[in-house]
């Protein structure tokens, strides 16, 4: 073999060896268990299905139909047709074709009602309350790793595998399942997975945890999957074009509900009223544009008060805070936080984990105190605590 040809080829073969070894190591634990692979019609989950099948596992492909992409099409400015989004006909078609190609049984199971109840509704409610929601974590908690595991068990699969970039491993010393950051930190999805329980982690495999995205695409090509070049979807699956407001308007109109009237005052940190706003849902912490007020220096949204219908603005310096409170906490690496712990914390998906001390301040609340003040800590987002690569746990920023 001439590895001298291109570095890319070298890495491809290296990755095959590494991936093969890693998956073999996992497969020793799995033996003849049946694995249900959650297939979205994307490259990642398709490659997972192909890999596990090639390894000799009994694999069942499942797509969870969670949202009807045609439901709000053309309403209130929403696009007429949405293709290439999770749960679209095209994606189900792609997943089904991959399953056929690799020779595994494939089923679509419908959980639209649960998705609407556990993801869409809370998303809308958070948004109209002036918080910035992350539906992906809710989907992971309720659908991907609760409902999916239920379905898998119902049909006889003890474990599920997904295309998430993350790692799961059992730590003998602690006697706990650990969730860890993946090899490709640019694709790290652990931020959205902080809610997984020990039970869920014990039944979940993330075969892509040790691979980079380019390596995954190479592997897809190696398995002859036509969708190896399919672009990744970057946005929330049910919000085409990332336009939250348009989605909320269309959804509320469909439900026959009105957007609550939360128009009120724009106030400074000192409580001085300097203007008006048309609704708290138009703002997010750290926002600079759209305030409708001009002063000498730049103004940012520093807090949104749903109760008072107030949007509090201030200068850049007001955006920084040293603490946050995380509620409805889920712990993974440890069973309980009995004394203060030194960790790094992510306050949003695209954020470099920052050093902090965390301590329990209530039954269900953890206070994080950062070494350095952090910019735009936003209620509604998640705070996820890391110990190096391992996810200690996380909660919702209140």
């Amino acid at each position: 073999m001439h590895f001298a040809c291109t570095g890319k080829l070298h890495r491809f073969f290296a990755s095959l060896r590494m991936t093969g070894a890693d998956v073999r190591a996992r497969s020793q634990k799995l033996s003849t268990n049946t694995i249900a692979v959650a297939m979205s019609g994307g490259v990642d989950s398709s490659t997972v299905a192909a890999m596990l099948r090639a390894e000799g596992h009994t694999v069942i492909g499942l797509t969870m139909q969670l949202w009807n992409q045609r439901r709000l099409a053309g309403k209130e400015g929403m696009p007429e047709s949405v293709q290439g989004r999770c749960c679209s006909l095209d994606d189900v078609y792609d997943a089904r074709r991959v399953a056929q190609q690799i020779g595994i049984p494939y089923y679509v199971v419908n959980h639209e009602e649960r998705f609407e109840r556990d993801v869409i509704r809370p998303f809308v409610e958070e948004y109209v309350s002036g918080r910035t929601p992350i539906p992906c974590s809710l989907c992971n908690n309720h659908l991907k790793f609760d409902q999916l595991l239920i379905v898998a068990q119902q049909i006889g699969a003890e474990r599920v595998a997904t295309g998430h970039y993350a790692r799961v491993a059992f730590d003998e010393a602690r006697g706990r399942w650990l969730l860890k950051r993946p090899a490709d930190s640019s694709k790290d999805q652990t931020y959205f997975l902080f809610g997984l329980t020990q039970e869920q982690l014990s039944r979940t495999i993330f075969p892509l945890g040790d691979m980079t995205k380019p390596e995954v695409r190479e592997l897809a090509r190696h398995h002859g999957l036509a969708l190896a070049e399919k672009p990744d979807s970057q946005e929330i699956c049910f919000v085409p074009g990332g336009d939250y407001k348009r989605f909320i308007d269309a959804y509320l109109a469909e439900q026959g509900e009105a957007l609550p009237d939360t128009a009120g005052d724009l106030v400074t940190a000192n409580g001085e009223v300097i203007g008006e706003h048309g609704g708290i849902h138009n703002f997010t912490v750290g926002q600079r544009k759209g305030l409708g007020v001009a002063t000498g220096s730049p103004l940012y949204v520093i807090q949104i008060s749903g109760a008072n219908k107030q949007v509090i603005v201030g200068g850049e310096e007001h955006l920084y805070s040293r603490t946050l409170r995380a509620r409805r906490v889920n712990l993974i690496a440890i069973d309980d936080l009995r004394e203060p712990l030194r960790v790094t914390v992510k306050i949003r998906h695209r954020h470099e984990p920052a050093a902090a001390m965390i301590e329990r301040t209530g039954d269900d609340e953890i206070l994080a105190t950062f070494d350095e003040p952090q910019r735009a800590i936003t209620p509604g987002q998640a705070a996820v605590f890391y110990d190096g690569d391992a996810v200690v746990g996380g909660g919702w920023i209140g």
Partner: protein
Amino acid sequence: MRRIYLDNNATTPVLPEVFEAMRPYFADQFGNASSIHHHGQQTRAAVEDARESVAALLGCRASEVVFTSGGTEADNLAIAGMVGAGDHVITSSIEHHAVLLACKHLEDVGAEVTVLPVDSRSLIDPTDVRRALRPNTKLISVMMANNETGVLQPVSEIGKIAAEAGVYFHADAVQAAGKVAIDVKKIGCHALSISGHKIHAPQGVGALYVRKGTRLQPLFYGGRHERSLRAGTENVPGIVGLGKAAKMAKEALDRGDDHKMAALRDRLQQGILAQVEDAGVNGDGAPRVPNTSNIHFDHIDGEAMVIAMDLKGVAVSTGAACSSGAIEPSHVLVAMGLRTDQARASIRFSLGKQTVAEDIDIALALVPETVARLREISPRYKKQAVSTEA
């Protein structure tokens, strides 16, 4: 793994004799049945033979049989063919979507539609039909046998009402043909649909009985095939297959094979009910075709049961094939008054000519264990998972 097929209401395998009957008509006798040369004469003869076989199955004249691409086309041809703007149609809430949506489309173009409810056994009350009649009623369309429950409707009574009122009566007999005897004179219908792939003929062929003298607009324009009622070069192999299957179906009915079918179905049904608690037959107490049993198993997810059984090699279904993956529970089961959770927990078992006693044995072994496992899993799992809400 030997696969057991208990979803014959979705489709049936082509019988070997039917396949053999079709075989010459692909490469050997291939002429366009309308051509005047030898090749056309050959296939024309085959089409007309098939027409006679279908007519014998339905108790009508050969000239009253129109070949179509299947049951859906036959339903659409009857409904769109007999009803126009300003007309009124009476139909039932348990019809196949081919009928319901064809009627809905008529509403969009200016007709009026009354959809009659059914009782808890999914039976339509003929007096409801009579009461729904209006001066501008043009057509009553009620199915002879329901595809999901197998329940047989009182079509002869409806035929009498139609005759008295001077309105057309169309019966969708797609699920009845080959399972129970059909005599269009006794029923009193003006049109009746059948489908090849439900009676062991191939997919892609069906027929519509059209009583002589009935005015019908075609769906397709083109050649003058089928007495100008259905343009398009005849699907000769398919039609030959339909004819052979119809002939075999008539012979089987005359022999009393339907009793044997019913016995197998009953053994499956009683066997399941004896072993599984909190289960019941949907449509219990109503007359039914001999091959179908639609059973609700409380506290389970029907979709998961179908998948679990498929993975063990037994094919069944929840509701109709065309609705799989749909969010709405079966409109038929809902119309009968089943709660949504019960409708979602219903499984349809439908036998075919090829079903043997061993198939029933295997199903009887698998069903109780699958239901037990599903019932055990859900509450237990819900207790353990910790959900994190926003």
